[in-house]
């Protein structure tokens, strides 16, 4: 009798343990975020007369884009520098887009020259994204040169 009980219970026990220890986590997927894209043709130009940097860019697919986010850094390895970001708050979405950046907000008045690095990201505002900042565009640099020789 004991033998029969044991022989009957052992496979049940093994199956119960196997089910109890089943894998209960799934791999993450990046597919949602892959739907976002980056702007292109970012050009940063320093305007010496106004002490501003004009940043222009283009974006072919603007579906879901509600704004743009302009970032500036003092390092060519962008994130290693002192990074600052601004929402462009554009009223018009017709390309090429333009953002005027006042160099004085980043470069102190007594600094004669400095290289600044700019990039732009699209800010997505639609059913899926609520203000998510998409991937960055290729970085462009501008030489802030204040010397009057």
């Amino acid at each position, binding site marked *: 009798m004991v*033998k029969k009980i044991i022989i009957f219970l052992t496979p049940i026990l093994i199956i119960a343990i196997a089910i109890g220890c089943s894998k209960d986590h799934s791999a993450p997927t990046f597919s949602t975020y892959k739907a976002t894209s980056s702007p292109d043709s970012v050009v940063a130009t320093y305007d010496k007369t106004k002490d501003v940097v004009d940043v222009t860019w283009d974006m072919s697919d603007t579906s879901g884009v509600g704004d743009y986010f302009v970032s500036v850094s003092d390092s060519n390895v962008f994130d290693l520098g002192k990074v600052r970001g601004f929402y462009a708050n554009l009223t018009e979405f017709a390309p090429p887009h333009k953002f005027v950046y006042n160099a004085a907000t980043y470069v102190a008045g007594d600094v004669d020259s400095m290289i600044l690095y700019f990039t732009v990201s699209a800010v997505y505002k639609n059913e899926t994204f609520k203000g998510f900042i998409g*991937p960055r565009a290729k970085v462009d640099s501008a030489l802030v040169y204040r010397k009057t020789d």
Partner: protein
Amino acid sequence: MLKCVTITGLSILLLITTAGGVLAQDEESFIRESTISKRDAIVLSTLFPGLGQMTQGSKVKGISFFIGEAASLIIFINAHENYNTKQKTYDRDLGIFNNMKNVPGKTSSEAERLYKDLKSQNDDLDNLHSIRNTAIIVAAGVYAYNLVDAIFFSSSVEKSGRAELDSKKIHVSSAMIDRNPGIMLSKRF
């Protein structure tokens, strides 16, 4: 790497346990009269692998089963606890990752960083899951083998008594003499 080491370790453990059963054949030289019935041995083996074999006199076999089962269970419990702890962190981070699209100001690079971290966490969980399952399968295997051994391959009191009657050896057994416990030495001429 950890997975490989653990699986190899468990395999060696299983091998030792199995080999223990075979090596136990040599135990006949340590003849000790069995004082436990086969039924009791089965019950003890059901409680924990090796106990029945040890009380029946098959020490090497019993200890092998015992160590095999204990080690597998320790590895299983350790991996199971680690899995549960890491899964809580993983679930929390996965929730943050999936919700990033709804948080204004969250960037694509942040999402990418967290995604890489999540993938690494997921790999760790997969490894722990494999270790945990391998350990519990080995534990179940040792348990089942121990039961099969206790039920089908162990000898009953009468049989083992007869088998151990070897005229060239001295038999040691416990005995009650006038209600006092004692040891009885016997030799057949």
